């Protein structure tokens, strides 16, 4: 178990270094930063001076080392567009994105898993067929379209939910939360539903197919032959066996939701990291883009690490090395 985690950590560090290198390379695509910083009439001596003070005269690997060192301390430089430290900007925006993604994920699990179980257990019932057909919409409709539909229905026609923004937020230390005010709670509904729509349908279909698979296994047949109640068979024996793939997909989705909240945040003008990133792209604000890339990479790697560890919690067969195998 410990060896496994150590191995995984090492892999994670490699992944992060790669992501960091890609982020670092971004800086070389937008031309010479020195010419951006100095007026056109600056002398060559001035340029060399600035170049030296920024460390740009050093070979690229030294520059990369400095970049990594700074990144480890959370220092990603100054935003070209806003003139403020990037880390500060991201910290401001992070809670908004994480709260949105959190609600969407919760929605995906709380709706996806029960509906998945239902459609598996009542596979031939018309309601299951309806839900299954409906889920195709979630899988195939683009995110922004669902968002716009929801805005039209709930914000424009019915006028019961706000169409943009985060509502009133409360500051808890560095974390600004929208969960403590009515307007904040109302504001999160539409974006969370929009963002959660795809994972709901994905998890539902996954749970359904896994459940159907497990219900065919011998140990389920044997559990029935032992006279266990349906509840014990379905929820005690079958459900737990469907969890490993569900954990995997949920983990990957969680990372994906954070990374691709960009579209939903744009549609709803949600003041999260995604919106910040889109604006950064428009202004070629490289430090923000690089930092965003690193942060998303870091979140993905962390989630994967947690997911891998969860397998151990769920499946005793993976815990083999901690206990001796028995024979005759």
């Amino acid at each position, binding site marked *: 178990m410990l060896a496994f985690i150590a191995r995984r950590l090492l892999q994670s560090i490699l992944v992060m270094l790669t992501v960091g290198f890609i982020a670092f390379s971004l800086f070389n695509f937008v031309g010479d930063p020195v010419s951006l910083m100095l007026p056109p009439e600056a002398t060559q001596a001035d340029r060399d001076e600035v170049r030296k003070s920024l460390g740009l005269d050093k070979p690229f690997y030294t520059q990369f080392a400095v970049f990594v060192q700074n990144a480890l301390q959370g220092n990603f430089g100054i935003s070209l567009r806003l003139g403020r430290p990037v880390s500060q900007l991201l910290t401001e925006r992070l809670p908004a994105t994480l709260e949105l993604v959190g609600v969407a994920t919760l929605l995906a699990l709380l709706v996806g898993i029960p509906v998945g179980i239902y459609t598996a257990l009542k596979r031939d019932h018309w309601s299951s067929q309806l839900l299954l057909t409906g889920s195709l919409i979630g899988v195939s409709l683009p995110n922004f379209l669902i968002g716009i539909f929801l805005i039209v229905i709930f914000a424009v026609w019915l006028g019961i939910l706000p169409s943009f923004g985060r509502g009133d937020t409360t500051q808890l230390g560095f974390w600004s939360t929208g969960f403590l005010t009515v307007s904040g709670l109302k504001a999160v509904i539409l974006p969370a539903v929009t963002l959660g729509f795809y994972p709901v349908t994905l998890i539902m279909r996954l749970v359904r197919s896994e459940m159907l698979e497990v219900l065919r296994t011998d140990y389920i047949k044997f559990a029935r*032959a032992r006279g266990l109640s349906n509840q014990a068979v379905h929820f005690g024996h079958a459900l*737990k066996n469907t969890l490993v793939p569900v954990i995997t997909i949920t983990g990957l989705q969680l990372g994906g939701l954070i990374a691709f909240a960009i579209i939903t945040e744009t549609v709803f003008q949600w003041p999260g990291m995604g919106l910040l990133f889109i604006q950064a792209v428009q202004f070629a604000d490289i430090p923000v883009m690089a930092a965003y890339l690193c942060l998303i990479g870091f979140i993905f790697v962390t989630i994967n690490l947690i997911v891998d560890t969860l397998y151990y919690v769920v499946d*005793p067969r993976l815990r083999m090395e901690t206990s001796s195998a028995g024979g005759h």
Partner: protein
Amino acid sequence: MSSTPAVPLLQVKNLRIEFPTRRGNLTAVDDISFDIAAGEVLGVVGESGAGKSLTGAAVIGLLEPPGRIANGEILLAGRRIDNLPFEELRKIRGREIGAIFQDPLTSLNPLYTIGRQIIETIETHLDLTHAQARARAIELLNEVGIPAADRRIDHYPHQFSGGMRQRVVISLALAANPKLIIADEPTTALDVSIQAQIITLIKKLCREHGTAVMLVTHDMGVIAETADRVAVMYAGRIAEIGPVAEVIHSPQHPYTIGLMGAIPSVGDAHERLAQIDGSMPRLSAIPKGCAFNPRCTRVNDVPNHRCTTERPELLPAGKTKAACWLHVSAAAQTDKQAVTA
């Protein structure tokens, strides 16, 4: 069992199992009847697809849809159980009728300890506290020969070998002390060296507990060693049924005779094994008359092409009962109703 009850423990009467398909119903088990007395071991043999496992599944109410009981009755201690509502039937499963399946590697839920699975079975059927159930579980594991049961009870299935897992499965089947156990190919998936151990164990435990067994297998050797009586199935019908020694030593049905001839024995090692030519018909193409007639060497010994036109009933033949026209005397003619089984 000390007192022999007037009613057999299990009665299967005219059982018919069908699978509806687009091209009509396929009859997988066709009008079979047999009894199992309390404490008796009935072996059910036949080739794959003869309907033996389906019969076992029907008894315990676990036919997989679209398979269904189309006709007939199943009675447990005189009480009809094939038409019970789900909850009633569930209480019989495990409590009155236990089951042992073919593959011990897949019969146990890999995510739970064997103790949890045994205890949950005990708690479902018996009114015991958790501590009592656990004590009983350890006792059961001891009984089926799991060493250090009090420690092993907290192990997961993957920590046991195949033979040990089948022992666990047996302890699960016995958990609530049922009166009947349906053992569906309990040794087929095991190493030959382990098979004998498991068979001996099932035999010993059932004798001690007075449990009757319906032993479904295609292994005549297992039957010879374990069963009191044997039913030979062919194409969804019982070809012959009778005391195991009689069926083995003086089989009456040509199919049984063929089966016995196909068992290798150490004594005549140099003789070529007898084999029955052809293969069992598909369910969609069961021949008219006796299902065995296309492969039977003695079709021409029966006058009037009866074998290919009329289905034989299961009637006394020698010391067993066989469904074969050879054993219906010419005088009896079609007067088969007069002779009741």
